[in-house]
């Protein structure tokens, strides 16, 4: 399948991803921030589709936008945030925090400028029709141990979250 209008879609998705990420960190109401996070996650799923990764895009939409953000919204519903929404939202160290993040951004710019020619120019052969099959072969072949450990981690997380949220253990 030949790509169409790649440049337009890249800048379109990049604008939505970055603008809604800024909306996540600046909104006063956490529900607005959760909705902006959904827009960011869907833009990143669009990026994965442009990068010939349809399975990861589907996992991103189902797990992240459809699981994790729904979990956030449930917890926002359970917690009474009326008083918090009216208070001042930024903490005392906000200036130092922004300076530290800008220093990190400067470091990343330096890395990008220096290492511009390191990456190979040719893309690997990733046939889009076999992406899910190939990921399945690797998940159950080479990456079987991390797969089992991830399932154990999810079990521990479920038990831990239920125990911590119960009223009486």
């Amino acid at each position, binding site marked *: 399948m030949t790509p169409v209008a790649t440049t337009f879609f890249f800048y379109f998705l990049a604008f939505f991803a*970055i603008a809604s990420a800024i909306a996540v*960190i600046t909104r006063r109401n956490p529900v607005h921030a959760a909705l902006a996070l959904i827009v960011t996650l869907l833009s990143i799923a669009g990026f994965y589709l442009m990068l010939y990764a349809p399975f990861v895009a589907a996992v991103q939409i189902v797990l992240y936008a459809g699981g*994790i953000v729904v979990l956030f919204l449930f917890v926002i519903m359970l*917690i009474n945030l009326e*008083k918090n929404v009216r208070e001042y939202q930024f*903490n005392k160290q906000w200036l130092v925090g922004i300076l530290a993040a800008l220093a990190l951004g400067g470091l990343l710019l330096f890395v990008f400028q220096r290492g511009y020619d390191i990456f190979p120019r040719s893309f690997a052969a990733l046939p889009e029709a076999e992406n899910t099959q190939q990921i399945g072969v*690797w998940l159950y072949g080479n990456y079987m141990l991390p797969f089992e450990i991830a399932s154990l981690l999810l079990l521990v997380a479920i038990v831990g979250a239920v125990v911590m949220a119960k009223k009486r253990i």
Partner: protein
Amino acid sequence: MAEISTLHYLVVAAALFMIGTIGVLTRRNVIIILMSIELILNAVNLNLVAFSRLYGLHGQVFSIFVITDAAAEAAVGLGIIIAFFRNKETVNVDEVDLLKW
């Protein structure tokens, strides 16, 4: 502009990482801090999948594991928030100072 290369995706991922870091360091509401951590994890995932286009499918498999770990960590973090909110009726991280001198 020029043709969209890997560097374009890396710059977008770096911008998302920086925005997530600013959110973690600046906000008082702990739920927004957890959402900023999810932004950071998504930036890392975008980096992994962008590189997997050059080097093979390893990056995509690893990004699936990152998404799984992000789900587990979000669940545990939100459980902690619920437990803490039950004790002290606040979600501001600068009021979590029981162990402070």
